[in-house]
């Protein structure tokens, strides 16, 4: 599922920005941009003030999955983890962004009458939320978070039935989302698992689905310089040897193609 991007970056305006728990949600006006497919991403850079963060960074744009795309408005959800996300998290209505996208290949629908089972957490929510909307029928989504503040991000998964797990038990199940996933698969393993989240969580999902023989599509992350296959920087090692570029061959890859989800 790949929507082609207009060639080149374009300058768009932030029309709204709000905090949702530990996260920042940016809404940008992308009136003539195409409709992206769930799991695709955009390269973002603030039009002003890019490059003035710690260590004179960021220089390169940053990759973000879209959370929602409708009525000429693109929404992103991000967490401030470094100079790029910090700068983007500081943007307010009226500020401008450079965006390139949609990029990469998104999720593929379940086959063989399997049900869609979404699993993830943290900033893995956007592709899953977009996919739930695209699939329709309120699929089951299992989301893991650090704590209550982060769990607030679950509210962004509007069009799914959400079960939450938190490390500290402050919301929902105390423990890992993979525990919820194991239970769900025990109940009914005729599913395709769609997952996005922190590397360790994705690796656990990959391993679990591997054991259970359940097909899984993982939306992967890696540091990216370009997002369109130019730099060969964003690779992940494949089980059959060699590497795939996450930005053009992914970000969504079949779990079966990976030996493991790398830590970074």
């Amino acid at each position, binding site marked *: 599922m790949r929507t082609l991007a207009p*060639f080149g970056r374009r300058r768009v305006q932030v029309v709204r920005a709000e905090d949702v728990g530990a996260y920042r949600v940016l809404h940008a006006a992308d009136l003539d941009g195409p409709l992206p497919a769930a799991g695709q991403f955009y390269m973002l850079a603030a039009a002003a003030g890019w490059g003035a963060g710690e260590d004179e960074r960021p220089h*390169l744009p940053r990759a973000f999955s879209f959370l929602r795309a409708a009525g000429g408005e693109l929404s992103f959800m991000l967490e401030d983890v470094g100079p790029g996300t910090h700068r983007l998290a500081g943007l307010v209505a009226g500020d401008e962004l450079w965006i390139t996208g949609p990029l990469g290949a998104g999720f593929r629908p379940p086959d063989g009458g399997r049900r869609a089972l979404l699993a993830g957490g943290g900033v893995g929510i956007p592709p899953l939320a977009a996919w739930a909307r695209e699939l329709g029928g309120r699929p089951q989504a299992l989301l893991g978070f650090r704590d209550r503040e982060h769990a607030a991000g679950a509210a962004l998964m509007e069009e799914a039935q959400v079960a939450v797990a938190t490390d500290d038990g402050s919301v929902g199940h105390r423990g890992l989302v993979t525990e919820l996933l194991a239970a769900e698969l025990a109940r009914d393993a005729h599913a395709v698992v769609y997952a996005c989240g922190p590397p360790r969580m994705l690796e656990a999902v990959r391993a679990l689905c591997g054991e259970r023989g359940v097909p899984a599509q993982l939306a992967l992350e890696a540091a990216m310089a370009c997002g369109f296959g130019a730099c060969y*920087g964003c*690779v992940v090692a494949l089980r059959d040897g060699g590497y795939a570029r996450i930005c053009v061959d992914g970000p969504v890859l079949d779990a079966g193609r990976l030996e493991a989800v*790398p830590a970074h």
Partner: protein
Amino acid sequence: MVDFCGLRLEHPIVNGSGTFDAIAARRAFGDALLVDFPFSAFVSKTITLQPRAGNPPPRLWEAPAGMINSIGLPNRGLAGYLEHDLPQLARLPVPLITNVMGSTQDEVARLVEAVDARPEIAAIELNVSCPNVRTGLDIGADPQSLGSLVRAIRPLARKPLIVKLTPNTADVAAVAAAAEREGADAVSLVNTLRALALTPATGRPWLGGGTGGLSGPAIRHVALAQVAAVARRVSIPVVGMGGVTQPRHALELMAAGATLVAIGTENFRDPRAGKRIATGLKSLQIAKRPSTSMNTSEPRPEVDANCANS
């Protein structure tokens, strides 16, 4: 139109090898890429005789005003390139320059012969920023060894031969002069500066490949100094690159003596950077022609070798 080693190019802006993958870009942007192709010639990523998977990740580090890469020259190898990539690259609306690298003279010879035989390819760029297996230094770091390499392979190519110099040397102009003497049709520079990034938590190298190469605005003025030094020494055309993000940076490289200017890292920030810079350059040239005409009869910047640090 710009004449470069007999190639008639629409404008002076090309891409740096390995900084734009036209095949992948076509997958991301579709035919819009061809309609609005950003470069007047396309330089393909370095190919080697055998296929290479490239270095283990991480391959990127963001540096002040630039980036460090340790990609490791992933490529399908000569045969794979000719079979899979070339047919697609031949469909680009601009001439194709194929960049090759070998770690032995024999490897380079076989690459050059095979590439020279293909009509779809307009010119050959020889990447000599690879460590000599004996010395560990880049082959391109030493005038003698580079000279003998060029002497050996020059007869094998009827197509224009561009030697891409390494900046990791004491006297890049001497290396360029050796390339010219042995028959290179042009030189291109700069390649990336050797750099190291350490993992914050551990102090161990961040990049899977150990060291990497620094590129982007951080190296712009180093590139300008090397291009000026080379252009004053040789009379063959120079392809200048290093940290160009704006039309005026291209104009400066031309004022320093470059005939063509290549865009590298900026492609990552702006896929259409080549077109943007080519267009802006044209207006600047009209505005500023007197002071920056490419007419080589006009004096190149005097860059006397005074104490660099002072």
